[in-house]
């Protein structure tokens, strides 16, 4: 277990040292600033714009970070030949993968934490105070982190057998498909025969990001059901574990010579 923690810590450090990460955080803060500006030139929807734009920025920048760092987690190590050094020590391949996943997830949690501060500061600026319904924004942020969990695992899966470019394409494609997962299940429900089965299988296999998106709801101060929080948490964990298990299966058999 300590080996996994060591790899995770190193992954986190490496990501923090990465200048791209800092640039993205700075850009997210700038975007929150832009939200304030837009809020000032619009009528009666300043708070709405800050929440919508702020949370969307948190989500989008996190997605970009998850994809672009996630896809290089394994391939970069192979390219730099550092993977051989790591695996020549008493470190199992699955430990390496799980450590990488936890490291990237940790990076994103920290990243989201700072972005969230930006969102709340912007909100404080335009509303001159907080409302009790603003607490739901934390739930939306939590769901965004769950979204990152799934994305990191997917990026890691593709990184374990594919090139960085293809991994980025695959992960981004799954992110887009997953965002329309409910439509996909809607189509599956209306199909008939074999196509219904195939569409249903595909709909359940792709990640479901739509249930994790409650930005619009919290922007209007609407509460989030406790059941939804519980099921989303369990779903994101189950899906990530499934994908990482798939990555482990592939990576265990991969010829690294």
């Amino acid at each position, binding site marked *: 277990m300590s080996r996994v923690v060591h790899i995770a810590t190193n992954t986190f450090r490496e990501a923090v040292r990465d200048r791209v990460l800092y640039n993205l955080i700075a850009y997210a803060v700038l975007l929150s600033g832009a939200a304030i500006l837009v809020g000032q030139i619009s009528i009666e929807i300043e708070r709405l714009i800050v929440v919508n734009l702020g949370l969307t920025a948190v989500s989008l920048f996190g997605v970009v970070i998850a994809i672009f760092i996630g896809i290089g987690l394994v391939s970069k190590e192979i390219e730099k030949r550092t993977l051989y050094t790591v695996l020549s020590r008493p470190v199992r391949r*699955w430990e390496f993968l799980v450590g990488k996943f936890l490291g990237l997830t940790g990076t994103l949690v920290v990243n989201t934490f700072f972005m969230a501060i930006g969102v709340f500061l912007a909100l404080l600026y335009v509303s001159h105070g907080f409302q009790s319904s603003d607490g739901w924004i934390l739930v939306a942020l939590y769901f965004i982190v769950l979204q990152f969990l799934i994305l990191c695992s997917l990026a890691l899966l593709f990184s374990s057998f594919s090139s960085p470019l293809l991994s980025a394409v695959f992960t981004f494609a799954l992110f887009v498909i997953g965002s329309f997962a409910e439509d996909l299940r809607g*189509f599956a429900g209306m199909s008939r025969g074999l196509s219904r089965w195939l569409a249903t299988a595909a709909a359940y296999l792709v990640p479901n990001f739509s249930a994790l998106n409650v930005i619009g709801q919290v922007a209007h101060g609407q509460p989030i059901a406790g059941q939804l929080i519980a*099921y989303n948490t369990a779903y994101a964990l189950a899906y990530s574990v499934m994908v990482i298990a798939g990555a482990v*299966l592939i990576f265990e058999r991969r010829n690294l010579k």
Partner: protein
Amino acid sequence: MSGSRKVTAVASVVLLTSLAASVFLLRRLDQVHPSATLEEVLYFNSPKWVKRLSLGYDGLLADIYWTRAVQYFGGKHRAGATDYKLLYPLLEITTALDPKLIVAYQFGANFLAPKAPEGAGMPDKAITLVNYGIQNNPNEWKLYYELGFIYYMDLKDYRKAADAFDRGTKAPNAHPFLRLLAAQMAEHAGEIQTARMLWQATYVSSQDKHIRANATTHLAALQVDEDITELEKIVAAYRERTGKPPSSYTQLIATGMLRGVPVDPDGNPYRLMGDGRIELRNPENFPFVAKGLPPGYKPGPPKFR
């Protein structure tokens, strides 16, 4: 068991277990999440914006939007809905993305024009859609036919219907029946015979099984309406002669007013009610009839033949 095999076995078990768990949780999520389902969401409602955002891939996007329109209408129709608020915007976007998609005008107009539950009950929107189609495809005779059809069937504007059919005759490769329809419309608008001719024209001009089923169902309904109108006349004549309505068809047959027990297009005898009314035995099989329905009968979603 070697270390690698052990890891493989454990990872396989974990993968399958978590897959099952994620499917189960997704099903539960569907129940608790106030989902933005296909029926409720139109991500962009401006055709111009959708066209700009398509980045030149407007053909493919039109196909996707057309599929959404079909699924939206089909899903709502099956559920017996009366509100189709997204139907016209979906069709508008589809045809803005691909103005040459004739099928979207044809089917779209058929979805929009008829009254609920058969359709969306928006004949004006249907006419706007078809006129947009004609504007972009002036040589497509089928669109003039659709336009005339809506004017005739849904708006009962026989003059405009005749005009649309007449305009259609001038399109290249126009089907010969358009000329017949234009003439029939001018002379016998509003008659069952004319409506029958229109549905027969619909049947022969399309290869699509749904359109044909719809036409067949309407033709059966027209037959029922015609039969019952005739039977009502016979019952009225009997009542005039005897001073009371017939209690059975036997009395009508005995007086020579009927040759046998009259049957509907499915072969089931029409019911002769105590007060002399004629009713269908299975009204649910004839969703478009105007006559023969029991008092207070509420039709369900149409069943096509």
